[in-house]
Each structure stands twice: as C-alpha cells, then as structure tokens.
C-alpha cells in the first residue's frame, strides 16, 4: 500500500513541476468557461429550468466542466499515451516483473495526477467563474465532501476506461485510432458538450446509463444537490459499479495480454 502512495505522490509532484503549462492551461479553461457560460445564459434565457437546472445551476455546470476537464481526463491527456508507448516498445515486460500490480501501479499514478489537476487546474477557473457569474454553490460542507468523493469515483472510472484503451495496444499496432474513438466518446457522453439531461429521448437515457456520465454529469449533480438522502448512495453505487466492472474487465484483459507477452517473450 505504501508503494502505491509513493507512486501517487510522485505523479502529483511531477505534474506540479509544469508551472507555466499549468498557468497556461488555467488561462485556456477560463477563456472557454466565459465563452460557454454566455451561450448557456442565452439558452437558459429562452428556456428557464431547461434540463431541470435554473440559470445559476447551468452556469455552475459550465465552470465545473472546465474545472474537472483535466481532473477526469475527459479529453485524454493522462497516463495512457505513456502506457501505449511502453507496450509498443516492449518496455512493458520490465513493468510486469516489478513486484507491483500493473493496474494498481498506473491507477495510483493517475490518482496522483488527478489530485494535482483538481487543485492546479480546477480551483482558479472555479473561483473566476464564481466571481464573474452567479453560481449555485453548495452551502453545506457535507455536499462539498460528497462532491469530492463523486469526483474521485469519476477519476477511477475514467482511469478504468483509459486503461482498457491503452491495453488495446497489445493487439493493435497503432493505438492512436482506438484512443481517438475513446476520446470522442468521452467528450460526447460525459456531458462536457451539454448536460446529458438536455439529450433527447433514448439518446439521453443511454448517455446517462453509460460509464462516461460518471466523469462529469454525476459529480455536477451531486454538487448541485440533485441527490438528496438515499439518492446519493444510488449515485455512488452507479459510479462505483462501473468502476469495479471496468477495472475487472481491465484485469482480465491484462492477464490475457500478460500471457501473450510471456509466450512471445516480450
């Protein structure tokens, strides 16, 4: 357990060294936050209460999206490129002989990265957003805590998906195509484009049931207090269910892939 804590802390520190890049990213998130916020204002002006949100809730949705974009890796940019590269070059064989579990090793690292991105890339855009617009912020510390837990679950789901994407490199020579498809799905089904409650009919039902909704839609709804009482547990169960299921699939694929490496000798 200590080992994984060290791995997580290491990744946190690694991302913390990219200061200029972090500042530049915060700037870009903030600019996009403003642009999208104004389009949401126009939309909610026409249709107050659209998708079950009032104006300030809709604006919170925009700024939370910018704040969590990197944390939940909705546009990629986590560990997966590195893992794909290691698989392609064969360095993965070295990782397999480490006295650590491959999946847990990378999960720990990704959690460390996400923690940094939540602080480094999340706080400032959220602060600017709340100064420039009237956002719906939770009043009780309990909801803030509930929100953080939901974000953490979202990061794990996001990791589990990207881990599977990266493992595809064992079979496909060029993992870029799969990575791109996964990236597109993440953009569309996480709610980054528009709240999933605005998706019409069956598309909306499907989108809300897919794992990607754990990345943004569910945490935002927790933030906005949409899950009172036991509803919150059900939301967590949804996220945790996907997390466990996808991690297990990842395990299975990993063991098949490992056998492949051992048989082929790397």
């Amino acid at each position: 357990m200590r080992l994984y804590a060290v791995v997580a802390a290491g990744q946190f520190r690694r991302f913390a060294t990219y200061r200029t890049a972090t500042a530049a990213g915060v700037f870009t998130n903030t600019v996009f936050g403003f642009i999208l916020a104004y389009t949401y204002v126009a939309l909610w002006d026409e249709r107050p209460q659209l998708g079950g949100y009032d104006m300030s809730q809709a604006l919170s949705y925009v700024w939370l999206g910018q704040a969590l974009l990197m944390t939940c890796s909705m546009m990629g940019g986590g560990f997966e490129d590195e893992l794909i590269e290691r698989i392609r070059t064969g360095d993965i064989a070295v990782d397999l002989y480490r006295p650590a579990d491959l999946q847990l090793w990378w999960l720990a690292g990704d959690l460390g990265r996400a923690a940094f991105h939540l602080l480094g890339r999340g706080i400032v855009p959220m602060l600017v957003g709340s100064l420039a617009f009237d956002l719906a912020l939770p009043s009780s510390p309990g909801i803030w805590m509930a929100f953080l837990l939901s974000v953490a679950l979202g990061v794990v789901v996001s990791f589990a998906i990207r881990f599977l994407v990266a493992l595809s490199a064992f079979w496909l020579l060029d993992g870029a195509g799969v990575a791109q498809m996964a990236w597109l799905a993440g953009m569309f089904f996480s709610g980054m484009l528009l709240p999933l409650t605005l998706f019409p009919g069956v598309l909306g039902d499907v989108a809300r049931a897919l794992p990607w909704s754990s990345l943004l839609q569910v945490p935002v709804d927790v933030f906005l207090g949409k899950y009172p009482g036991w509803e919150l547990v059900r939301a967590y169960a949804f996220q945790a269910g996907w997390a466990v299921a996808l991690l297990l699939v990842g395990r299975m694929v990993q063991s098949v892939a490992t056998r492949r490496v051992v048989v082929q000798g790397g």
Partner: protein
Amino acid sequence: MADTTGAVEVAGAADASGGRPAQWPEEVFVRRPRFVEGVRAYGLIAMMWLRSTMAYRASFALTVFGNFAATAFDFVAILLMFSHVDRLGGYTLPEIALLYGVSGTAFGLADLLLGSMDRLGARVRDGTLDTLLVRPVPVLAQVAADRFALRRLGRVFQGVLVLGYALVVLDIEWTPLKAAMVPMMLLSGAAVFGALFVAGAAFQFVAQDAAQVQNAFTYGGNTLLQYPPSVFAKDLVRGVTFVVPLAFVNWLPALYVLGREYPLGLPDWVAFLPPVVAGLFWLPAGLGWRAGLRAYRSTGS
C-alpha cells in the same frame, strides 16, 4: 550591398572556369523575395510530410474521420440546443449555421496551413529549432510546414458542410456584393486565424510551455464566433473587435449578408474591412515573430 529583389551577387574566391580547383559551386547567391522563398520551402516540406503519412495509410483514414467527428460535435451541441429553443440570442438555426460554417471553414484552413505552429515551444525545448536555422530558407515557413497533415481537412470539410446547409436553407436576397462576401470572409478569416497562430508561436519563444494560451485564442476564438455576438457581454465583443480582431472573421461580414444590425452600433461599411484588418493584423504578428526569433538567437533558449 545588393538589393533584395533578385540581383546576382558573386562572393568569395570563385573560380567558375571549371577544372578541379573550382570545387565549390559558382558561389552565386541569388537573392529572392523572402515571401516567395518561404512559400516554396513550405510546399517542399509539406510534400515530405504528406509522403510520410502515406506510410501509415490505415490510421490516416481513421484520423481524418476522428478530426471530422471531433469538430462536428460543436455543431451537434448547437443542434441539441435548438431541439429545445427556436432562437438563440435572437438568431435562428440557419443564421447560426452561417456564422458557424464561415468561422469553422476559415479556422480549418488556417489550422491546415499553420496549425503545427503550436509545437514551436517543444522544438525550442528539444533543440530541433537549431536544425531549421542552418537551412537557407525562412524559419517561419519551416515551422509552419512542420507536421503538415491532410487529416486537418476533416475540419474544413465539416465547416464547408455546415456553411452549405446554411446557404441552402437561408432566405437571403442575394446581390453580387453579398455573394462576393462569402469567399472574402473565408479567405480573410483564415488570414486572421493564421496571424493568431503566428502570434501564438511568437509568444512561445518567451514561454515555451504556454502552447495552451494560443489555444484559448484560436480554438476558443473559433468557438466564440460560432455563436452570434448578441449572446456575449458588450466588453467581450469590444475586445474581439478592437483588440483581437476576431469579429472580422465572420460576425461583421456575415451580419451584412444576413441584413442584421451590427453590434456596438458600428457603421455598415465595417463589413467590407476584413481583408484590410487581416492584413493589418499580420503586421504585429509578423513583428512579434521576428522579435521572438531575434530573442531566441540572442539567448539560445
């Protein structure tokens, strides 16, 4: 010193009489206009990249599609919005599609031609910029042509598609002038975005890790222009009219085509300014590039 337009200058101890002592070229250095040289070099390098990508044909098709789909999502979001409302900021879907199509196509063209310039910071960091500086062609052209990728056509296709939809559906009383506005918008719009790419790259000479800042203006600007100006706060509209002239990409000229009122009470004739504004905007961008390159050559980092 010879002038810059094509005079022939013979330098050094040239011996053009043939035979073994004349091992070096005639040492004839022909000065050519930098712009022409730059465009030629750009073409040569872009061709090399095209042939390189052909080494990976399968993933090429996939990435063109991915590029198209990723761009199309913006428009899907707008369609989803219009499944709930009839107007956004007082504009109908076809009107917004016109704004979207013009901005998307113009940005797509600039991205196709100059999109790799956001890698400048990376080239400074890993030192490969130096290898470009020992070539006899302008550095700007070499950096711009770096990783030239036809997959970026996906974005152009998508913009053209939406633009086509808008032009078919919109009920516009076409005049020759209005018709001429469409290609004019696309070209000067691409030039405005292109200048932004150059300015962004120039900024990376100063801050090598700040490629993201440029995205805020290029990708962010494109997103902004997909919606009508009536949606945004007055100060933001002022900023993108007078400071970073994004409003000239599509807002002002397209509003003329649509017969709509201008934001900020601007006079009618601003609709015809985009080529002028684009030209003027290249001045600070070009000067910024030169200053950045000079700073690099004096500090080496």
